[in-house]
């Protein structure tokens, strides 16, 4: 039995049992963050806030949503939107947050790529982050099924058809995933389970892993400088807070984080109340009809770039390209052969590679939404081929980068 003494205060009582002082130091007041960072470093906190908004709004939607093909649409568009007090608010918050979270994820991801925050000791942060991207994608897709509108149904139909794997004709697998020949009650119910229980659980576990993976390597900084955290922490604790290169997570970094959150919330709530069409697509306000495909069908904006890579090629090649696109980002730490953890603008060819990739992603996204005809088709094909080429040449352009 460990030794316990009579507690001198509530804090002492908790400390003897839970070591709250140590935990507080490790997670907050002595979690040292470099000072040389910019507002992009706050994207993680914004993601946490957005995830929180999704969870809370989701809880209230869950109180009234009915996962039945006959009543789902009504439970959302009548009960929640018209009857439940503030139901419209939770629905708008949930829909807009689900879309905005991907904007922040992409900014967060590309910040990491730009500053090399996936290299040398930070690979697990990158991997857990990419896994979070995948689980968030699955969460978004499963959530989109739930209102059971036209887009819900047909997105469900098309995405599950991907699993037939082209010429392999794995129709049995597709029916197994759906639980039926077409997206119907079984499909809706199981994606409801995924959306409300299994995927949020996975996400929360991965967030824990993501934070854990960050703790030891510490947060990166704008110049890629290798900081002696112990030495700098000592300076800070001796009172030299102005000269130290590091600061406390709480409340130094936290106060800047929350300031960025404040600005974000202005932008976010403007969208929730006045400009939500991009997130609450009009086509999904038609109830699902298995006998009528909408004239224009497209995924949510954040899936458009990989949807576009699927489109220009014959089915089997398209599926390979699509699979490649899903997985390739995960391999970045090993495809980038350079030893330098510095911002892209100081990395020569890699700097150019970064901006070309970013522009290509925007082009793919735009083409993914536009009708696959004429000039749009051609641009889409070029952009898709460019995407594949970029990842293939990455090892070659980085392996000769001189160590700085």
């Amino acid at each position: 039995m460990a030794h316990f003494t009579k507690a001198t205060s509530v804090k002492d009582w908790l400390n003897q049992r839970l070591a709250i002082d140590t935990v507080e130091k490790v997670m907050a007041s002595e979690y040292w963050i470099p000072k040389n960072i910019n507002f992009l470093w706050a994207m993680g906190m914004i993601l946490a806030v957005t995830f929180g908004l999704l969870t809370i709004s989701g809880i209230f939607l869950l109180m009234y949503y009915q996962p039945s093909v006959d009543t789902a649409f009504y439970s959302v568009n009548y009960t929640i939107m018209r009857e439940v007090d503030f139901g419209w608010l939770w629905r708008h918050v949930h829909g807009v947050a689900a879309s905005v979270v991907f904007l922040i994820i992409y900014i967060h991801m590309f910040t990491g790529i730009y500053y090399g925050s996936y290299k040398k000791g930070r690979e697990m942060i990158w991997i857990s982050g990419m896994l979070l991207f995948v689980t968030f994608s699955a969460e978004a897709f499963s959530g989109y099924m739930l209102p059971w509108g036209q887009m819900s149904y047909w997105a469900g139909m098309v995405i599950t058809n991907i699993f037939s794997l082209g010429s392999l004709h794995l129709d049995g697998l597709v029916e197994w995933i759906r639980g039926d020949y077409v997206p119907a009650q079984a499909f809706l119910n199981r994606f409801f389970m995924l959306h409300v229980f299994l995927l949020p659980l996975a996400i929360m576990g991965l967030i824990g892993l993501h934070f854990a993976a960050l703790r030891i390597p510490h947060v990166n900084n704008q110049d890629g400088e290798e900081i002696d955290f112990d030495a700098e922490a000592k300076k800070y604790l001796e009172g030299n807070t102005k000269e130290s290169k590091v600061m406390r997570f709480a409340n130094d970094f936290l106060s800047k984080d929350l300031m960025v959150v404040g600005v974000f919330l202005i932008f976010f709530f403007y969208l929730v109340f006045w400009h939500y069409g991009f997130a609450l697509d009009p086509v999904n306000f038609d109830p699902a009809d298995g006998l009528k495909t909408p004239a224009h069908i497209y995924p949510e904006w954040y899936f458009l770039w990989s949807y576009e890579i699927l489109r220009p090629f014959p089915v089997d090649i398209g599926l390979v390209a699509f699979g490649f696109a899903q997985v390739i980002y995960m391999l970045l730490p090993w495809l980038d052969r350079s030893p330098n953890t510095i911002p892209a603008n100081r990395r020569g060819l890699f700097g150019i590679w970064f901006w070309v990739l970013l522009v290509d992603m925007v082009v793919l996204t735009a083409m993914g939404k536009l009708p696959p005809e004429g000039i749009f088709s051609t641009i889409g094909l070029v952009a898709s081929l460019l995407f594949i080429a970029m990842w293939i040449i990455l090892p070659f352009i980085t392996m000769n980068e001189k160590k700085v």
Partner: protein
Amino acid sequence: MKNNSRRGFMGKAFGAVAGLGAIGSLVAMKKSWDPLPSVKAAGFTTLDMSTFPEGEMVTEKWRGKPIFVLKKTAEMVAKEKSDPAAQARNIKVGNDNYMVCIGLCTHLGCIPAFRKDTADFLCACHGGMFNASGDVTKAPPPRGFDIPPFRIDGNKMVLGEVGPEYQAMKDNGVTL
């Protein structure tokens, strides 16, 4: 050295602003939990009193609960003349006398059965009994049938709304 990032005044002020936001959100959340308008609207049932045959115990529905409606025969009315408790429970609509009550035993909530030959109610769960006026005649129920809020409107009775007759019954302790 102690944590020098002291909250300070601004920290507390910011915390207060954030707290206001949290309170606002909690108010919205509480309201989302409220019963829906369609539920509250369904909380009113209108009975057309001209449809009830004399001496027959008819079960209506109000807020998911059974409502016993018994139009009293002349015999029943005469029998009640000597019973002030029964008269206090009597509901008069036009020239007719009714027993209207929530059809749940006041003991533990089972629905007592009406026995036509003896013109009384017997609750199968624990043997409680009520007479045709709704008073309790055999334990264990602690009191007579509860009377639902009602308002008389010509030949109709609206259950769920409070009319003067109901208010009087409540004030006199006839019903809870």
